[in-house]
């Protein structure tokens, strides 16, 4: 992006990270992307009663090029998946995805051939929200948890180190099929 990506790691980069995180979380603009019933609750969050403007997020942008956050609200059908991916690709970096409701997060009760079993098959998801549909308070709660993530996001050299660490952990992690928990 800019200068902040080329700073050496140290006190300067840490301060820039904090400032950038604070600014990014303070003006997170969501893309208008309602797919089903969850979109009704998403619209309710924009109304005066819940008032997303309190967090600087009231402008649901009609163009993905002006948006930072994609709230995937509703079930994603196989036919919608490429559209979803295109909207995501058209958003400028940095960008985040909130998977709202059980259908978007895992397919929910629609465990069938028509529905993508979780949007993380298509786009990287930053926060998952349960509920069918989640009440507006639940969405605000998820957005605030995402704000915390954004405020602590790393930049430049720190980001590279973080990604390398995540990749190393992913390669050494136990495959999901071998996880047992309490199962015998």
């Amino acid at each position, binding site marked *: 992006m800019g200068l902040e990506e080329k700073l050496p790691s140290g006190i300067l980069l840490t301060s820039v990270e904090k400032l950038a995180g604070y600014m990014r979380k303070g003006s997170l603009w969501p893309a208008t992307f309602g797919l089903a019933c969850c979109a009704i609750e998403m619209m309710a969050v924009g109304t005066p009663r819940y008032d997303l403007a309190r967090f600087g997020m009231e402008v649901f942008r009609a163009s993905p090029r002006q948006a930072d956050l994609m709230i995937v609200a509703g079930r994603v059908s196989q036919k919608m998946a490429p559209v979803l991916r295109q909207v995501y690709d058209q958003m400028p970096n940095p960008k985040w995805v909130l998977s709202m409701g059980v259908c978007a997060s895992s397919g929910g009760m629609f465990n069938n051939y028509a529905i993508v079993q979780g949007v993380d098959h298509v786009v990287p998801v930053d926060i*998952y929200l*349960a509920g069918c549909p989640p009440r507006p308070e639940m969405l605000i709660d998820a957005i605030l948890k995402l704000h915390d993530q954004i405020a602590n996001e790393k930049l430049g050299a720190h980001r590279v180190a973080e990604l390398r660490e995540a990749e190393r952990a992913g390669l050494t992690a136990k495959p999901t099929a071998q996880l047992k928990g309490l199962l015998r």
Partner: protein
Amino acid sequence: MIALPTQLKGFGVTFSTMFKKVVTEQYPEEKKPTAPRFHGRHVLNRHPDGLERCIGCELCAWACPADAIYVEGADNAVDERYSPGERYGRVYQINYLRCIFCGLCIEACPTRALTMSNEYELAEDSRAKLIYEKQDLLGPLLPGMAPAPHPMVEGTSDEDYYKGHVSRATPAQEEYVAARDAAADEAGR
């Protein structure tokens, strides 16, 4: 200048709104209580002496339209008793990324082991974190309860539990739990 009165009327609405009460809920700071029967996160209940109510019958899993519940029952042993009667739920998982909070599991439960709370703040950054295991779902130990496993109240059967004849853990049960924890500590050292 014919349009002026209607324009004034319009601004009148805007002006009078300034004196109305604000409808905005200050959500994270002030949480308005939900309706009392709101369907929130599940709770696995306990009997008044701390034994678990779940008998591992899997009726909740069968009732679930989204296949969000996974139960694996096991037999109670004499020296390891989790619930009154024969069986208990050894594995109990609810996947909150499948659960649609319809409450059919609550209707299906024959022992009122599974109920719903009004808690709704369920957002995490990974799918695995939203699969709740038994230890996440079990209700808190209230005063008078001793943590399972421990024997039933002396001289009672499982029927007495369901008829409400057990009100709290007896001294014998509490002694058993203390001895069990001491033995576990000894083995851990």
